[in-house]
C-alpha cells in the first residue's frame, strides 16, 4: 500500500498531537490557557460529535474487516484505514480542545476527571489501533476486542460529557427523584423547610387528599388552617389551646395520641418545633434567619438545615492605596485588610496613653474602606462619634470601656451597614441609646456593665425585636464561696520568732484564725492582722470571710520550733538508698517534706534508722521531735519505738528517752506527725544518738505480708 503525502503528514500530526496530550496530562496543573485560545476550547462540545460518528463507523468496519468477503475488497480496506486516521486525528484535536476547556473556571469535580480520562483513552486506543492494524500479528480477535473496547470507552466518555453539559441524571430526572437535600439556613422558611417536613415524614401518610383520617389533611396551608372533624388544628400564638399539640402530647397508650402507636413517633425536638412554631403565631412565610439568633425555634431549626452557603460579603467600594495604608499604620494604630483581594479594612487602636482623637480623623482618606473599628478601652468621647459616623461602610464597632455616653448616638444613623455595636462598660445615657432604632442593619448590641436599668433594656428589646441585646453576667446575689487564705511564709521550721504572713487576693476579706486546733469561725476567732509573731510550735487554722460570700475552707499551717542546730549529723545505720535524700543533713535542713515521700526530702528505711548528732557547744536539750509520716497504702507506719541516747561524747551515751506509740489500727489515715521525746535527764549534751524503729512484721490486714514496714522521717526538731 502506497502512502500518499497527505497520509504521511496526517500520521505525523497524529503522533504529535498524542505527545501533546500526554504532556498536557502530566503538567496540566500548571497550564494557563490564554484568552485567545479559549474559544477553541469552547468548541469542544460542538466538534466532539464528528469524531464520535467517524470512529464508530471505523470500529464497525474494523469489526468485520477480516470477513472473507471484505478482506480482499480494496475499497473497503482503504476506506477503513482513512476512516481510522481521520477519526483518531479528530478525536485527538477534540480532546485537546476539551483539555483547554477544562482549564476554565467551573470545571472541576469527579465527573470532569472521569470524562477527561475516558476521552483521552479513546484517542490513545484509536491511535494504537491505527498503528497496529497493518501488522502481521493483528488478527481478527484483536481487531474485534479493540473495536469493542474503543466503543465502550467512547460511550462512557460520552455519558460523562453529557452529565457535564446537561447536568447529572438529565435523562432520568423526569421519572426518578433522588433523596431530598438539606436547605441552607439563609434560604429556609420556618414552615416550608422545618415544620412541613415533620408533617410529611410523620403525619401525611394518613392525612393526605387520598386518605383523610379524621377529616384532616396536613398537606397544604389551607387544609392546615381548616383543621379536621374535631375542629381547628391550632390557635396561633396559643399552643396550650391547640388541638395538634394536645394530641401529640397525650400519653402513648391513649387512643387519640398522635401519631398512633406503631407508627413512627415524633422526637422531642419535633414536638418542640411544632410547639414553638404555633407559639410564635404559626407564620407560614417567616424566614428562619429573621428570628433572633438566640430564639429557641431558630436554634432547634438550625439542626435540620444546612449552614448558610458560603457567601462572602461583597463590597461595592474600591480598595485603598497600599502605600496610604502603610503610611497610616503604626504601632498603636493597626490597619489590616480583611482578606486577600478584599478592599475592606479593619482598624484596631491600642494604648490608652497614646490615644488621641486625631488618630481617627487621620483615617478620613480610607473612611470608605474601614468595615471594622476596635476602640476597646480607649478614652473615646462622644464628640468622636461624629468622626466615626463618617466611616460609612462600618459593620462592626467596638466601643467597650470607652468614655462615650451615647447621648449623641443619633449621629451614627449614617452607618447603614453597622451590624454589631459593643458598648459594654460604658456609662450609657438612657435617652441617647434610644436612637439605636435608627441603625437599621444592627443585629447585636453588647450592653453589659453599662448601668442601664433592666427595664430600659427590656424596653429597647421590645421596640427593636431584630436586635439581640446582650445583657451579660449579672450577679444574682447568691453568695459563693471564698477561696482559702494564702500563707506567704516560706520557712516552717523556725529557730527564732517570725511574723505570720497571711494574705487573701480579694479585697475586703477578713482572715480569722485559731492556734488551738479548732476550726475558726467568723465571730469569736482572732482576726488576723500583720504583726502576729510565731515563736513556738504552732498549729494555725485560718479561714477567710467577707460579707456576701460564704466563708472559705480551712487553711492549715504548722510551724515547728527547732532551737538548736547540730554542728554535724551522720547515719550510723543508714536509710534505704532510694530514700536517702541529700544524706543525713536532710533531717536538719529546715525544709519539710510535704505529703510526697518520694520527693527526696524524706528519709526512709525498713531497718532501724540510727542517726548521730554532735554539738561543738554543749546544749541544754529538753525535747527531741521526729517528724514522721504514716501512709499505710505504701506500707509506711509510724515508728514502733524511738530511743534517744545522749551524753558528753560518743563513748558516754545514756538512754534518755524511749517512746512507744500505740500499735497501728487498720484504716489509720494518712498523717504527718511530730513524735516528741521528752528527755529524762536534762543537762548539757554534746552528743546525741536517735534510733527510729520500723514495724518488724506488717500487720495481718496489710496485703503485703511477712515484711518489715517502712519508717519515714523528714526533719528532727531539737528544743
Amino acid at each position, binding site marked *: 500500500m502506497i502512502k500518499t503525502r497527505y497520509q504521511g503528514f496526517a500520521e*505525523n500530526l497524529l*503522533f*504529535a*498531537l498524542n*505527545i*501533546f496530550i500526554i*504532556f*498536557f496530562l502530566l*503538567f496540566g*496543573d*500548571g*497550564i*494557563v*490557557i490564554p484568552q485567545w485560545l479559549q474559544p477553541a476550547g469552547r468548541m469542544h462540545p460542538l466538534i466532539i460529535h464528528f469524531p464520535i460518528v467517524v470512529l464508530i463507523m471505523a470500529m464497525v468496519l474494523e469489526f468485520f474487516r477480516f470477513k472473507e468477503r471484505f478482506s480482499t475488497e480494496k475499497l473497503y480496506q482503504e476506506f477503513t484505514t482513512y476512516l481510522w486516521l481521520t477519526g483518531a486525528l479528530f478525536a485527538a484535536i477534540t480532546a485537546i480542545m476539551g483539555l483547554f476547556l477544562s482549564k476554565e473556571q467551573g470545571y472541576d469535580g469527579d465527573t470532569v476527571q472521569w470524562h477527561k480520562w475516558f476521552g483521552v483513552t479513546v484517542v490513545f486506543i484509536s491511535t494504537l489501533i491505527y498503528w497496529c492494524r497493518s501488522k502481521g500479528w493483528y488478527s481478527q480477535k484483536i481487531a474485534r476486542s479493540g473495536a469493542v473496547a474503543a466503543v465502550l470507552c467512547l460511550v462512557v466518555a460520552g455519558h460523562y460529557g453529557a452529565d457535564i453539559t446537561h447536568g447529572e441524571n438529565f435523562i432520568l430526572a423526569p421519572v426518578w427523584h433522588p433523596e431530598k437535600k438539606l436547605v441552607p439556613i439563609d434560604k429556609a422558611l420556618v414552615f416550608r423547610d422545618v415544620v412541613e417536613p415533620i408533617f410529611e415524614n410523620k403525619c401525611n401518610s394518613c392525612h393526605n387528599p387520598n386518605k383523610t383520617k379524621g377529616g384532616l389533611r396536613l398537606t397544604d396551608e389551607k387544609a392546615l388552617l381548616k383543621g379536621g372533624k374535631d375542629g381547628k388544628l391550632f390557635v396561633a400564638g396559643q399552643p396550650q389551646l391547640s388541638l395538634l399539640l394536645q394530641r401529640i402530647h397525650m400519653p402513648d397508650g391513649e387512643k387519640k395520641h398522635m401519631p398512633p402507636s406503631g407508627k413512627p413517633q415524633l422526637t*422531642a425536638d419535633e414536638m418542640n418545633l411544632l410547639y414553638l412554631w404555633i407559639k410564635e403565631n404559626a407564620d407560614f412565610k417567616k424566614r428562619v434567619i429573621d428570628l433572633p439568633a*438566640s430564639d429557641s425555634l431558630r*436554634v*432547634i431549626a*438550625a*439542626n435540620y438545615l*444546612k*449552614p448558610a452557603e458560603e457567601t*462572602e*460579603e461583597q463590597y461595592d467600594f474600591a480598595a485603598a492605596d497600599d502605600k496610604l495604608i502603610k503610611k497610616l499604620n503604626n*504601632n498603636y494604630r*493597626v490597619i*489590616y485588610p*480583611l*482578606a*486577600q483581594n*478584599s478592599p475592606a479594612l479593619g482598624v*484596631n487602636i*491600642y*494604648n490608652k496613653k497614646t490615644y488621641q482623637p486625631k488618630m481617627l480623623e487621620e483615617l478620613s482618606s480610607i473612611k470608605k474602606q474601614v468595615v471594622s473599628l*476596635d476602640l*476597646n478601652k480607649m478614652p473615646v468621647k462622644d464628640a468622636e462619634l461624629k468622626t466615626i459616623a463618617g466611616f460609612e461602610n462600618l459593620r*462592626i464597632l*467596638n466601643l*467597650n470601656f470607652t468614655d462615650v455616653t451615647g447621648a449623641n448616638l443619633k449621629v451614627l444613623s449614617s452607618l447603614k451597614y453597622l451590624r*454589631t*455595636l*459593643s458598648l*459594654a462598660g460604658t456609662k450609657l445615657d438612657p435617652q441617647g441609646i434610644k436612637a439605636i432604632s435608627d441603625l437599621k442593619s444592627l443585629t*447585636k*448590641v*453588647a450592653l*453589659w*456593665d453599662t448601668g442601664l436599668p433592666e427595664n430600659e433594656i427590656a424596653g429597647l428589646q421590645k421596640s427593636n425585636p431584630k436586635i439581640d441585646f*446582650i*445583657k*451579660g*453576667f449579672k*450577679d444574682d446575689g447568691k453568695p*459563693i*464561696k*471564698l*477561696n482559702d487564705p494564702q500563707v506567704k511564709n516560706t520557712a516552717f521550721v523556725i529557730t527564732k520568732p517570725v511574723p505570720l504572713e497571711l494574705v487573701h*487576693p*480579694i479585697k475586703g476579706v477578713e482572715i480569722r484564725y485559731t492556734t488551738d486546733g479548732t476550726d475558726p469561725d467568723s465571730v469569736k476567732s482572732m482576726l488576723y492582722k500583720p504583726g502576729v509573731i510565731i515563736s513556738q510550735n504552732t498549729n494555725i487554722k485560718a479561714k477567710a470571710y467577707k460579707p456576701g*460570700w460564704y466563708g472559705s475552707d480551712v487553711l492549715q499551717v504548722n510551724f515547728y520550733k527547732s532551737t538548736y542546730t547540730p554542728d554535724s549529723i551522720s547515719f550510723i545505720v543508714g536509710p534505704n538508698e532510694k530514700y536517702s535524700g541529700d544524706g543525713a543533713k536532710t533531717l536538719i535542713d529546715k525544709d519539710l517534706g510535704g505529703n510526697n515521700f518520694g520527693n527526696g526530702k524524706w528519709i526512709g528505711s525498713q531497718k532501724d534508722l540510727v542517726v548521730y548528732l554532735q554539738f561543738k557547744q554543749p546544749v541544754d536539750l529538753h525535747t527531741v521531735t521526729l517528724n514522721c509520716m504514716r501512709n499505710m497504702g505504701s506500707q509506711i507506719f509510724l515508728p514502733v519505738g524511738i530511743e534517744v541516747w545522749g551524753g558528753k561524747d560518743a563513748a558516754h551515751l545514756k538512754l534518755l528517752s524511749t517512746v512507744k506509740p500505740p500499735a497501728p489500727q487498720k484504716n489509720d489515715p494518712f498523717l504527718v506527725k511530730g513524735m516528741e521525746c521528752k528527755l529524762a535527764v536534762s543537762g548539757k549534751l554534746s552528743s546525741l544518738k536517735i534510733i527510729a524503729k520500723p514495724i518488724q512484721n506488717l500487720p495481718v490486714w496489710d496485703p503485703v505480708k511477712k515484711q518489715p514496714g517502712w519508717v519515714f522521717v523528714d526533719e528532727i526538731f531539737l528544743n
Partner: protein
Amino acid sequence: MEKDFLEHRLNVNRRRFLSRLSLGLGSMALGSLLIPDLFSGIGSDSEADFVPGIPNFAPKAKRVIYLFQDGAPSQLESFDYKPKLREMMGQELPPSVRGNQILTGMTAQQKSFPLIGSFYDFKQYGESKAWVSDLFPHIGKIADDICIIRSMFTEAINHDPALTFFQTGAQQGNRPSMGSWVSYGLGSENKNLPAFTVLLSKGKGNGQGVYSKLWSNGFLDSIHQGVQFSSGENPVLYLNDQDGIDRRDRRKMLDKLAELNDVSYKEFGDPEISTKIQQYEMAYRMQSAVPEIMDVSKEPDDIVKMYGPDCLVPGTYAANCLLARKLSENGVRFVQLYHQGWDQHSNLPQEMAGQAKDVDQASAALVTDLKQRGLLDETLVIWGGEFGRTNYSQGKLEKANYGRDHHPRCFSIWMAGGGIKPGLVYGESDEFGYNIIKDPVHVHDFHATILNQLGIDHKKLTFKSQGRRYRLTDVAGNVVKGILV
C-alpha cells in the same frame, strides 16, 4: 546488496525516529508556552496563592483561645451521656465493640474489662437539651452558647504523641504549633504583644507534663514561637530591665543597637537582621503593655464572682482564663492554656471532681465574658483534651472508685464563638461510648475547621522546609461544615 537494503531500512527508521522525536519535542515546547513558570523553578501552585499575614477569605474568627485539658478528661463523666454503662456496670466490654483496638501497656495485660458508668449524674441543659454531667454545672448553663462535639478521634494512644498531634498536626515534635501557624498565617493584630501566648496551670489530679516543644515555632521564623506568660514576678522572662537601667537608658541602647544593626543590614541584606530590630522594639513596647495586661486588680467584683475567686490567685486556671480574655481582647491571635492533671487511671471520681472544680466555672465565665463584650463572634474558644478514656475500668472496680485508661477512638470536646454553631451537639458515639457512629471528626479536620474560621484555607497555608512544603493538616483534613453557623 542485502547490506544496502538493511542500511536503507535502518536509515529510514533512524530518520523517522529523529523526525518523530523532533515532533514530540516540538509539541512539548508548544505546551510549555502555556505554562508560565515551568522551567523557572518557582512553584506554580499553592505557595504563590499564599501571602503570609493576610487571610485567604473573610474570617469569622479573628482570635483563638484554646483551653487545653492536659491528660485527657473522661468524656463519659463530662459530655457523653451513656446510661447503658451504668446498667451494665461490672459486665465485660463485648469484644465486638472493642474490635481491633490496641490497648496501652497499662491495661493490655488486664484479664477483664468491666464496664463502668459515670459516677456522676447527667442533666439536660438549655434549648439544645445537651447532656452535661453534674461535674460541670457552669458549662451546662452555657450549653446554648457552645457546640459539643462527641465524635472526636485521634491516632495516638499515649499522652505525648497525642498532645503533640493536637498541637502541631504531627505526632513527632519539630513541627510548628497551631498557634505558630496562625501567627505566621495572620500576623499579629497588636504590635505591642506577641501573636501567640501560652499560659500554664496545674490541678491536683494525676498529671502529665507539658513541654515547650508544644508551642515551638518548628521551622517557621522564631517570631512565631509561643511566648509563655507565667505567674511569678516576671510574667515574661527577660523582659524587665536589669537593675540600674531605666526606660531612657533602654531607649538609648536600643536606638544605638538599631543603628548598628542597620549598618550590618545594609552590608549583608539578611532579612533576619531587620526581624531582630523589630523584635527588640516589640519587647520594648511589651514592657509597658504586659504589666497592664497582668494587672487584675481593676477587674470589677462581678467579674471575680463570675470567674470564681481563684481568678485573683496567679497561676490558677481561673486566673489564666481571665488573663486569656485580657490578652485576646488586646489582639493576641492565639492564647494557649494548658491545665494539667486530667490523667485519671485510678481514683477517677474524686480526682475528676477536683479537676472539674478547677475549670468549670472559669471556662464558662470566659465564654460569657467574651459574649457580653460582643467579642464572642470573633473569638473562637476551644475546650478539650488529647484523647478520651475507656468505658471499662482500669484496675479495681468499685462504684465510687475506678479508673479509666486512654481511649483515642471517641471523645468529646466543645467549641464556642468564632462562627461555630451555638447550641449544637455534633456527632454521636455508640451506646457503650466506645465507637463513633455518626459524624466522626479527626484531628486534621479539627485543625482545618479552626483555620477555616480564621479565614485560612488549610491547603494553602504552607511553608517550604527541607525541600517540601508542610501544612498544619499534613495531606489530610476536611472542614467540618456541620458545625459552622
